[in-house]
Structures are given as structure tokens and as C-alpha cells.
């Protein structure tokens, strides 16, 4: 689940037009989400800053900023001094192994509380008459002679339905296989960790592709830290310690004042990654089967948008114009939406 435990970062500064539309659509929906769900999801537009450490970073970030602004997506360039003013704990020492040469700042980006998002959605859905059945695995997808969906087998019995929407994160390809479909997905463990809680010290979200880490501070006071996935396909829901060591070495490099912070806990989740780092959201070759998958390491930010677009696609039996490009078929036609760079550190 995208709203499971994660590092709660929300931003929309992706490169391509299709991505700008889908992520900015989600960003717009975050704005009114607490009111709509009547539940405070603690969406905080504190800004997401991506650090540039070399000439290549500076060139690609400028390209991103220009592309974003042409698409009406908020993004701006900061000098190292401006970045330091926006985020005082940042070290802009010229003697660093990877000195900060500037940053791209999306002020509308930020964080939300992941638990509140799950609870708020669950309560609002329940109020609309939706049954939520927890701890009940799907064991099969039943199809009629003409290939269309007839229902799903679960651990607690059969549910007859002509329409099924699959939103299963790391296990998406396992479910798709139940309908006889093979997907361009690979599942990897993604780890994150939090520190002991401290008083407010960190005002925004900072990400660095080059030294491999991202960090923010939760409202509880914990530093929330993440980085890349483990390298191999796995459903084990835990990763290796050397990944975390690497992440923390990066954090200490950019924020030397955190060198003596103690880490409280770490965890790993399974994320489904597509070859072009963009989601697959829409219809499948099986009539009545709809899918929302492939968000990889960064699906939380898209939660309200993905939910709206999947619901639209299921209700109308055709995609919304925003998710129309995010088909499974793009891997056959070659019309990929390659966001490997914008997807940041995590792949």
C-alpha cells in the first residue's frame, strides 16, 4: 500500500508532460484532502529541496526546472547560500567530498502524515458504504469463458464482481499473474529509518541524488530518512544493513550536526518498479480488470490522484485523459515515460 509506512514526501517536479500532469493533479488534490475526508492528514507544504553536487546535477536540474515551469509546475533554482538560508542545518562547506553547488526547490512540495491518510480514506470510504476487509489475501482471479473477470477468490470465500481494481504495490505482479497476465515489474526492498524524536530542527524536505539520501522531520520530532532500494528482487520486507550505513553516511556528510543523532528504528517494504519508473494505471488486456501499480519507491505523493484516476477508469471503463498515457501497452509501442532521473535517489 502506498499509504503504508513510508517517508511521506510529496512533490510533483517530474520531467515529462505526462508526469507533470499526473503528479500535479495529485498535488492539487492534497490541498483540499483534509477538508474532503474531514480528517486532518497533516499535509504540510514545507518545500522539497533537491541538492546539486556537480555540473551534471546543475544542468539536469535546470532542465527539470524549465520543463516544470513550462508545465505550470512550481520549481525554482537556489544558490548554495539560498539553500542554506532555506534549510539552516545544511552544510555548504566547499571542503565537502560532494559540495552543494545549488538546489532545486519546489515550495509546494512537503509531507503529510501517512497514517492519517490511510485512516482518513478508510473512514471516508466506510461512511460511503465501502466494506474494508483486512488480513484477507486474494488467492485467485476468476475469469469467464470470454476472458472477462467474474470475481475473486479470497481466503474467506468468493466475491462475485464484473470489475476488479488491483492496487497491490509490491505484490502487483503476483496478482496480475492470477489473471494470466505478465507485467513489466520487479519488486525490491526499500528501507527507511527514523531517529529518536528531537525538538524542531529541520524545516523542509531535502533530497540528494548524488550522495543518496533524503530526510525530513516528522511532527513527532523524528528525523525520517530514506535512500535507495536493495539491489535484488525480494518480497522479504527487510533489507541489508549496509544500505542503511550508506544512507546515514550520506546524511552525516550533508548535515554534520546529525552525526550524534541516535536512530530509533528501521524497516523495509516491497516496492514494484517499472522499467521506465512511471506507474501503470488503467485498463488491462482482461476485460473488467483495472490496475494501479508500478509506483516504485514514490507512490505516496500520488495517493489522491491515483485513487481518483483509478476510480474514474473503473467507473467509465476508460481512462481519464491524465492517466491515459500510463498504459501497459507503452512497453510494446516503445512510448515510455522515462522518469529515471526525476524519480531521484530511489532506483
Amino acid at each position: 500500500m502506498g499509504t503504508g509506512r513510508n517517508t511521506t514526501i510529496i512533490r510533483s517536479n517530474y520531467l515529462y508532460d505526462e508526469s507533470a500532469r499526473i503528479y500535479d493533479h495529485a498535488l492539487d488534490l492534497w490541498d483540499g484532502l483534509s477538508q474532503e475526508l474531514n480528517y486532518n492528514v497533516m499535509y504540510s507544504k514545507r518545500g522539497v529541496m533537491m541538492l546539486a553536487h556537480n555540473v551534471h546535477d546543475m544542468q539536469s536540474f535546470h532542465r527539470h526546472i524549465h520543463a516544470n515551469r513550462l508545465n505550470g509546475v512550481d520549481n525554482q533554482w537556489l544558490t548554495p547560500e539560498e539553500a542554506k538560508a532555506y534549510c539552516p542545518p545544511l552544510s555548504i562547506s566547499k571542503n565537502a567530498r560532494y559540495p552543494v553547488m545549488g538546489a532545486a526547490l519546489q515550495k509546494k512540495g512537503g509531507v503529510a502524515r501517512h497514517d492519517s491518510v490511510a485512516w482518513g480514506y478508510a473512514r471516508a470510504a466506510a461512511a460511503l458504504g465501502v466494506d474494508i476487509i483486512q488480513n484477507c489475501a486474494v488467492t485467485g482471479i476468476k475469469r469467464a469463458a470470454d476472458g472477462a473477470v467474474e470475481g475473486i477468490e479470497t481466503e474467506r470465500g468468493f466475491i462475485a464482481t464484473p470489475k476488479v481494481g488491483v492496487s497491490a504495490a509490491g505484490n502487483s505482479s503476483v496478482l496480475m499473474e492470477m489473471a494470466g497476465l505478465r507485467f513489466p515489474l520487479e519488486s525490491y526492498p526499500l528501507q527507511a529509518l527514523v531517529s529518536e524524536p528531537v525538538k524542531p530542527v529541520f524545516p523542509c524536505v531535502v533530497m540528494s541524488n548524488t550522495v543518496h539520501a533524503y530526510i525530513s522531520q516528522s511532527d513527532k520530532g523524528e528525523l525520517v530518512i530514506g535512500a535507495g532500494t536493495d539491489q535484488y528482487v525480494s518480497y522479504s520486507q527487510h533489507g541489508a544493513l549496509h544500505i542503511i550505513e550508506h544512507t546515514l553516511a550520506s546524511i552525516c556528510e550533508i548535515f554534520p550536526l546529525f552525526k550524534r543523532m541516535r536512530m530509533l528504528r528501521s524497516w523495509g517494504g516491497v516496492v514494484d518498479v517499472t522499467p521506465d519508473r512511471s506507474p501503470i494505471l488503467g485498463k488491462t488486456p482482461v476485460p473488467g480488470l483495472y490496475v494501479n501499480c508500478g509506483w516504485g519507491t514514490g507512490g505516496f505523493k500520488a495517493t489522491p490522484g491515483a485513487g481518483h484516476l483509478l476510480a474514474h477508469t473503473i467507473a467509465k471503463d476508460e481512462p481519464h485523459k491524465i492517466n491515459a498515457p500510463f498504459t501497459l501497452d507503452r512497453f510494446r509501442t516503445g512510448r515510455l515515460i522515462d522518469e529515471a532521473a526525476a524519480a531521484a535517489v530511489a532506483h
Partner: protein
Amino acid sequence: MLLIRCPYCEEERPEVEFSYAGEAHIARPADPSQLNDEQWAEYLFIRTNARGIHYERWCHRHGCARYFNAVRDTVTDKLQMTYKAGEPKPDAIGPSGGDK
């Protein structure tokens, strides 16, 4: 961290010496110009992504630098065996480790 036995060095070494190189036994098309778009998509993008027994390639990057294959259970991360590149695909040892 995984402990991986390199079949060339014949030693069990920590994962940081190795790099993962994706699913194993995916043969490059013998006659690429004969493939249609669907077959290319299959070759380039579609993967087993097995929940259970997985055949995969590793490279002993900081050792002998050679590629070899491994059989691993992706639920437990337990490595069952490694074998040299070019050797036939072996059978996995028993069922996957208690996957549900």
C-alpha cells in the same frame, strides 16, 4: 546482508563484493530482425518477478569480476545454490520457503 558463494572463486563472500544483474536465463533473440513489437517487449521488459524461487545473475564485481547464476528464494532471501554462467538451469531444492 547476503553471503554469496562465487562458483569461480569457490568462496562464500559478503554481498557488498557482488552486484546483482537481473533475472537469469533470458536468451537474446537469435534473429532480432524477425521479432515483432510484442516479442521485443517480452524480451526487454517482462520479468518473472517470482515470489519464491528466482533464478538470477550476479557479478563478483570486487572479486574475480565474473558473472554467474544463483537460485534464491525471494521470500526468505535464502540462497539455494550458485552455478557458473552457461551451465544448464538446475532444479530448485524443494518448494519455496513457506510462502503464502
